């Protein structure tokens, strides 16, 4: 049996499941909002085991052959301190904070047990630090963009004298929601007006050399194999700084791409160093003909690479999970050609 941890609205999960069904492979899909009942988690000198209740079935660790961590978390210990108990509200808050830590620890342990199986993705190790990844990439001889992190506008001014800058999150993308409006942070170019607005000091922020892009690369990685896609975001002013400002009328050209072998070797070493057996790598190919590494996302939107490039990544993932040979050599059992 294969266990998939994901979210309810993830369409890529459905497409991978279609292939698991075609391969006649039993699976359990756990969405992060599905309540997981901790019936028993046990360990002794003979080993570890668990039995988790999910709706009307029980999942035992011993029955699991493969695990795919797509995204989300195991929704265990949903109970908080009973509302009726008459305690000091400050104390209730402290107790609930403690319970939350207990929950995270248990989630991490269950995630670890799942990842001891034949696993794609890792629910604990996926928490990678983007700045550390940049450090690892640089150490492996992969070009990175020059950056500075500072809380002083004087430093930003100085850096801006040298080259144009962009600013983006140190950790990554934020999404906020208030009054039914969604707010997100995009990568933005830095200019004098913006610096004036910030005042002389502010929250420590990341400033990065604005790369002169020829095109961008989104590279999906799956256990030793790279699936690169080039994104021509520079033809359109709307998408030239951040291609996530999608132009739906005239979407950026996206095409399959071939990476230089030398670069592939270095990226392979990087993925092993992090370590990740799957992820989406973002790079830029500059007007100076250089490949510049930006980041790796352990949880990637691989559908946006798979479909336009016809890479059949959903099938490749299902084959990985069922330990089948790569696609062209292994047809599903009822295929007709």
């Amino acid at each position: 049996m294969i266990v998939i941890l994901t979210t309810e609205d993830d369409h890529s999960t459905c497409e991978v499941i279609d292939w698991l069904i075609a391969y006649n492979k039993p699976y359990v899909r756990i969405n992060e909002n599905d309540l997981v009942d901790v019936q028993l988690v046990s360990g002794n000198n003979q080993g570890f085991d668990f039995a988790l209740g999910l709706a009307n079935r029980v999942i035992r660790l011993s029955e699991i052959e493969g695990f795919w961590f797509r995204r989300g978390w195991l929704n265990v210990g949903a109970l908080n301190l009973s509302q009726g108990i008459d305690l000091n509200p400050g104390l209730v808050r402290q107790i609930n904070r403690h319970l939350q830590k207990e929950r995270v620890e248990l989630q991490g342990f269950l995630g670890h047990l799942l990842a001891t199986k034949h696993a794609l993705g890792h629910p604990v190790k996926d928490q990678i630090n983007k700045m550390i990844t940049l450090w690892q990439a640089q150490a492996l001889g992969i070009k990175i963009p020059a950056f500075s992190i500072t809380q002083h506008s004087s430093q930003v001014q100085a850096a801006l004298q040298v080259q144009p800058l962009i600013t983006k999150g140190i950790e990554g993308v934020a999404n906020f929601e208030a009054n039914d409006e969604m707010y997100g942070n995009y990568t933005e170019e830095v200019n004098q007006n913006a610096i004036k607005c910030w005042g002389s000091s502010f929250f420590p922020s990341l400033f990065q050399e604005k790369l002169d892009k020829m095109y961008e690369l989104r590279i999906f990685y799956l256990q030793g194999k790279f699936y690169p896609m080039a994104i021509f975001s520079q033809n359109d002013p709307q998408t030239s700084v951040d291609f996530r400002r999608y132009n739906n009328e005239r979407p950026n050209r996206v095409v399959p791409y071939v990476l230089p072998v030398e670069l592939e070797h270095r990226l392979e070493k990087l993925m092993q160093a992090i370590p990740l057996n799957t992820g989406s790598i973002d790079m830029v190919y500059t007007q100076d003909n250089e490949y510049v590494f930006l980041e790796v996302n352990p949880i990637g939107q691989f559908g946006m690479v798979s479909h336009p490039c016809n890479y059949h990544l959903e099938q490749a993932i299902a084959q990985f999970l069922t330990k089948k040979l790569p696609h062209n050599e292994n047809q599903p059992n009822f295929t007709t050609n």
Partner: protein
Amino acid sequence: MKKKFFVLYACCIPVKGYTRSLVCDVQRGSFKLIPNELAHVLTQHHPCDVSAIKAQHPVEDHETLDEYFEFLTAHEYGFWTDHPERFPALDLTYQSASSITNAILDVDQYSNHNYESIFDQLEFLGCKDLQIRCYTEMNPEQLHQMLGQLNLRRIKSVELLLKYAEAYVSQYYQLPQQYGRLVSLVLHTSPKNQVIQSSQEGHCQIICLQQAIDDETHCGQISPLYFSLNLPTFSEAQHYNSCLHRKISVDKAGNIKNCPSMPKSFGHITEQSLLEVVQQEDFKQPWGITKDEVEVCRDCEFRYICTDCRGYTKGERKYGKPAKCSYDPYTGEWA
């Protein structure tokens, strides 16, 4: 500094016809008509080393060549690069996890279908897209019994054809809100032609048609209206039939067929399972008839974006051109 090679974006694919050609943009879903000489250059000399190509052409053609490449660049069909080896062509392999991807279910006043059983079987086969065609008036109660069986299934889109009925029409318009799987609702035999809701305005289009569609013989129309320009259908059309591949149909009488318009029945739905039929080799035989094999279509520039029809063919030949197609690729004109 001008780069050396002109390269088509991999999603822009030239298709040569007898008198003229297309560049099909399978990403943005559009195409451009181009002369055959340009299609020749784009297929035989791709990536295009333009100065080398010019050297093979008389000087008076150079301006035209430049115009061609400017046209393609301006419309974002291609770009200039010094590294064409980094930009491979799209792999046009077709893969599907479903043994049946699409199905047709016909209904008239004598039909006695067990919808739950049919949908269960389609679900098992992995069917994604279902077309239900009702030639006779259906009351809302019957429709709820039918459509209520479709929630929580792998069938993700349903096109519903209904006969217009004055008494029920407002209830018909409510159906898309109740059944999220509906993507198209067409009412035939309507008082007038009218778009009630376009596919941009909601997840389901609602259209009234004056034409009476009272049986399966109305199918098989070939027209630019039915062109389908996307990568899955383009790649499928390279290898398989662009109408019948992985299709199964249950006609109004319950006969299991490739298509309700085709005479051959592979058994009755009450006696045979859809799976048993799908496993028969002769059922799958027409799946492999590509447009490259069909008479006339094989010379047509629209062959990979057009639908097909094997139900009504010229001279009723197996490889005959669809009878309801009025395009002549040898003149480049629609009749």
